[in-house]
């Protein structure tokens, strides 16, 4: 099961959708999308993870990269993460750097 990823930009938000397995062999794909999003001067980045079955620390590293690349003014949202993915984010101490939400809330993210 590889990683499927896509980027969509609109309303000043970069939506990155990830599905499948995000591990050290697929993390570069995610990083490339973060790079593209960073070039667009968005106000927020939403990671749509409903169909992401798995995330290793290689994925966390890309989230750190996004945080550093985007600057503090850009909000990072993690949307719909599955239980173990969410737990990985939380126990690694990332919950202060990203906002976790169960479903995409346009009123909050696109405000």
């Amino acid at each position, binding site marked *: 099961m590889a990683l499927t990823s896509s980027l969509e930009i609109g309303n000043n938000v970069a939506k990155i959708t990830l599905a499948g397995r995000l591990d*050290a062999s697929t993390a570069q794909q995610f990083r490339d999308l973060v790079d593209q999003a960073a070039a667009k001067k968005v106000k927020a980045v939403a990671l749509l993870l409903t169909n992401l079955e798995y995330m290793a620390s290689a994925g966390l590293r890309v989230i750190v990269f996004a945080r550093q690349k985007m600057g503090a003014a850009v909000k990072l949202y993690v949307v719909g993460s599955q239980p173990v993915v969410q737990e990985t984010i939380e126990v690694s101490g990332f919950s202060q750097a990203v906002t976790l939400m169960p479903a995409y809330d346009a009123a909050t993210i696109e405000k």
Partner: protein
Amino acid sequence: MGPDPLALPGTLDALDPLADFVHAAAAAAGLDKKAAGRLHLAVDEVATNTVTHAYGERGLTGQLYLSAEIAPDVLRIHLEDTGPAYDPTATPPPADLDKPLEERGVGGLGIFLARRNVDAFLYERRGDRNRVTFVVRRPGRPG
């Protein structure tokens, strides 16, 4: 019965079949989806370390050897490599987990997650191999 032992090339391409192996073993041992996902993370992180540090950065080639052992009370996954002796169970946890991401290193997170996600995390050096064992209790079987 769990899956048969598996030898994989020591590259990142091993991670996908490794995931399938761990999920097959977890299913055979009756672990639920969450326990299987945690175990997968543990084995994947150690294998990733081996492939990138023990093999990749040293220009060495080698394999990863996986086997599963289903005991009445626990599932054990053994992961072996032929890299230089390295004991991941002795790796200290990251000291900066509660710092803002901008100020943090992310080294050590993988092994931290591996240790956290299993009931026991064991290492031994056997001949020219490192052998890491991941132990997870099977549901409904206390002890």
